């Protein structure tokens, strides 16, 4: 192990010999990519055999993967409520226009109450998960190291698939528990503005706990997040394939802008860091976010590539995965895409291509190397890199006969 690390340090210049990009330019080149990339072939096979599917809600084994209660709704209930009222024979025709708005208001209020209750529960239950681990270190770093240790040990001792002491649902809920701290300010605003609060939430969606967002507010936030894509190192790379970029090699403003759009750094802190030229804190946060994505990818891939059980990803989780990895174009409505068959397929294939590029040759995909051995230490050069030169869309999906 020591020898290996020395060599890596010795030869770790900017050029990395990672897997090749997935080509989407023609059906033929896509098939070539498919035969060259075993991870993509495995994912496609899992999808075609029905081992992997996307559904609105799940139960059973896949409940360990999804945490629907911590994610926002995908469809605003207006149409559903209105049609229910219109088809309700108990409601007289003369009061239907009034009743449908009243019921919509009631549904939205109920949604907010449920959201607040779920945020509370997530915070409370994730505390129990956190208690299992050491308190002096972030959970992401501990799990990332644990995963690395277990992968190295399983490679040498051939002990079979690696398992972590936590499920993806628990991991995600720990990550999303900080939404709880929006509740106090939300309550204060509610007391101050009462029924005018929804209008304030409409204009400033970031004050709302994540699972209380309406699809419209979600769209606004997704636009804010995608606007930071230009700060990603892979966007400024001169070569089509990403190079090795450590967080410390990025300009400080790019790091803070990315962190702000990922909701990992408040504006006032980013101003202070830029003012004092403090690189360490923001760069470490970015490295931690990179590790979080690697772990999340690993949880999902491990479940999807396992032939023993069926994996179901909920629509909400699919949308969230796409959002966090910035695998969408500006202006795209992820909620409406996820609700239609073709759009859902596009989103899923974007994830497949992203994973196939990142995890080719790694242990989770049947290879022999850990993630860091393939890409280098905290390589943010591949952060949110789609895996292909262009993002897949509906037209290319049809052209490639996927």
């Amino acid at each position, binding site marked *: *192990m020591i020898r290996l690390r020395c060599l890596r*340090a*010795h030869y*770790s*210049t900017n050029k990395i010999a990672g897997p090749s990009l997935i080509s989407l330019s023609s059906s033929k080149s896509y098939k070539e990519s498919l035969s060259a990339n075993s991870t993509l072939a495995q994912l496609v096979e899992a999808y075609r055999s029905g081992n992997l599917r996307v559904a609105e809600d799940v139960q059973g084994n896949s409940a360990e993967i999804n945490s629907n209660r911590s994610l926002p709704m995908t469809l605003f209930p207006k149409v559903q409520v209105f049609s229910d009222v219109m088809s309700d024979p108990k409601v007289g025709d003369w009061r239907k226009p009034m009743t449908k708005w009243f019921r919509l208001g009631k549904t939205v209020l109920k949604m907010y109450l449920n959201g607040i209750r779920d945020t509370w529960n997530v915070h409370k239950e994730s505390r129990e998960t956190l208690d299992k681990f050491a308190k002096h270190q972030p959970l992401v770093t501990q799990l990332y*190291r644990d995963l690395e240790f277990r992968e190295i*040990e399983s490679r040498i001792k051939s002990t079979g698939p690696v398992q972590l002491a936590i499920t993806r649902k628990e991991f995600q809920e720990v990550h999303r528990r900080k939404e709880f701290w929006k509740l106090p300010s939300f309550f204060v605003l509610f007391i101050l503005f009462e029924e005018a609060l929804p209008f304030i939430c409409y204009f400033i969606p970031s004050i709302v706990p994540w699972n209380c967002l309406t699809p419209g507010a979600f769209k606004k936030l997704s636009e804010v997040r995608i606007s930071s894509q230009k700060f990603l190192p892979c966007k400024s790379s001169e070569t089509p394939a990403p190079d090795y970029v*450590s967080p*410390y090699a990025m300009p400080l403003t790019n790091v803070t802008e990315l962190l702000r759009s990922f909701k990992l750094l408040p504006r006032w802190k980013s101003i202070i860091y830029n003012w004092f030229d403090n690189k360490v804190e923001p760069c470490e946060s970015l490295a931690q976010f990179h590790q979080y994505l690697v772990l999340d990818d690993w949880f999902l891939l491990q479940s999807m590539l396992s032939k023993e059980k069926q994996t179901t990803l909920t629509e909400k989780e699919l949308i969230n995965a796409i959002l966090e990895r910035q695998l969408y174009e500006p202006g795209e409505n992820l909620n409406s895409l996820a609700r239609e068959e073709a759009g859902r397929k596009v989103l899923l294939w974007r994830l497949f291509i992203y994973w196939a590029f990142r995890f080719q040759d790694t242990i989770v995909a049947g290879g022999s190397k850990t993630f*860091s051995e393939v890409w280098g230490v905290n390589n943010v050069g591949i952060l949110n890199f789609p895996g292909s030169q262009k993002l897949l869309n509906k037209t290319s999906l049809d052209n490639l006969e996927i």
Partner: protein
Amino acid sequence: MSVVKSLCLKRASSSISMKKPPFYTVFPQKKLVNRILFELDSKLTLPKLYPVYESIYCSLGKNEPEFLIPTSFRASDVMIMKKVLEKLRHRTKSVNRNLVDLENELLEKAAEMGDSDAIAVLSFKVLKAPDKNSSEDITHAKKLIKELYQLRHALTIKLTGDFAFKNMDFDNAGIYYNQFLAIERDTYRAGEVYGKLGIISFKKPNLIEAERCLLASIRLCPLESIVQSYYHLAQIYMDSEPLKARALMESAASEGFKESFRLLGFLEMNYFKNYNKSLEWFKLGMELYDVECFIGYFDCCVKLQAWRKAGNCLKSMQNLSRASMSAETAVQSFLSSRKAHIQKLETYSNAVVSPHKLADVASVKDGELQRENRWKL
């Protein structure tokens, strides 16, 4: 005549060099010794110990030892005197032959007075060098070790573990170390044992256990005794927490651990992008003729566009490859992998004005110089 004179001078100087230097010149500063005595929790102070040290030192090499250890001194006190010298050796990272002789003498004296630690150390010394000792000595040493082991003497168990560790018998070493930890859990020696257990787990590999043991070792022991624990822990954290790995590796480097210089250099150069700092680490490694540090230094100079430094480094590397066979392969692979940089370096080197040309230009009259392009040297 002059030849005879020089011969006489040589003889005189050699006789002076053979003579032992006075004790006060060899013995370290009072402040340092007092600090070590405090760390060792000694009940005796330096004013009491100094005359004993001096008398033993003066009697070294004489057939009939003249020194007298006061009757109030116990075997453990003599052993503390020995430990003071041992710690000094580790702390100053220098070996004084005279002080080593004194240390050995004290060890033997402590063993004669019946100190179990001293007996164990002496017995293992015999076992470690079987060629230099007679078979009777070896048999006697084995017998003593066996007796001490049956008495569950902690140091004997640790030394047995060390002996197995040295002979690459890691399973047995682990067993002995765990037996030692059942007796002693929170001493300096336990820190050393945790360090060794960490290295054993690292090699297996059982990395979670290795991390636990190495952390325990660092908690219990001062840096100078467990540099390897710092180094191995830095290796463990290298992928997940490079910031922590750097701090640990710097601690190892502060004790002059050779392997840490190149890793720190590469970490600073490739991850933290702190080229000036990495140059300093590589420089330290280059002083120890580490060929990888030369490679790192060259790469760093290229990144900083310090072409003169890069050129000098390349020359030193070629000299090193001529001197050492092992370095030659590394240098050859380096030359083939950095062709583009070396070509660029040559271009820059050619553009540099040679001193002869400068002298020629200086001799040209002002008028001529003005007629030509001023900068067309």
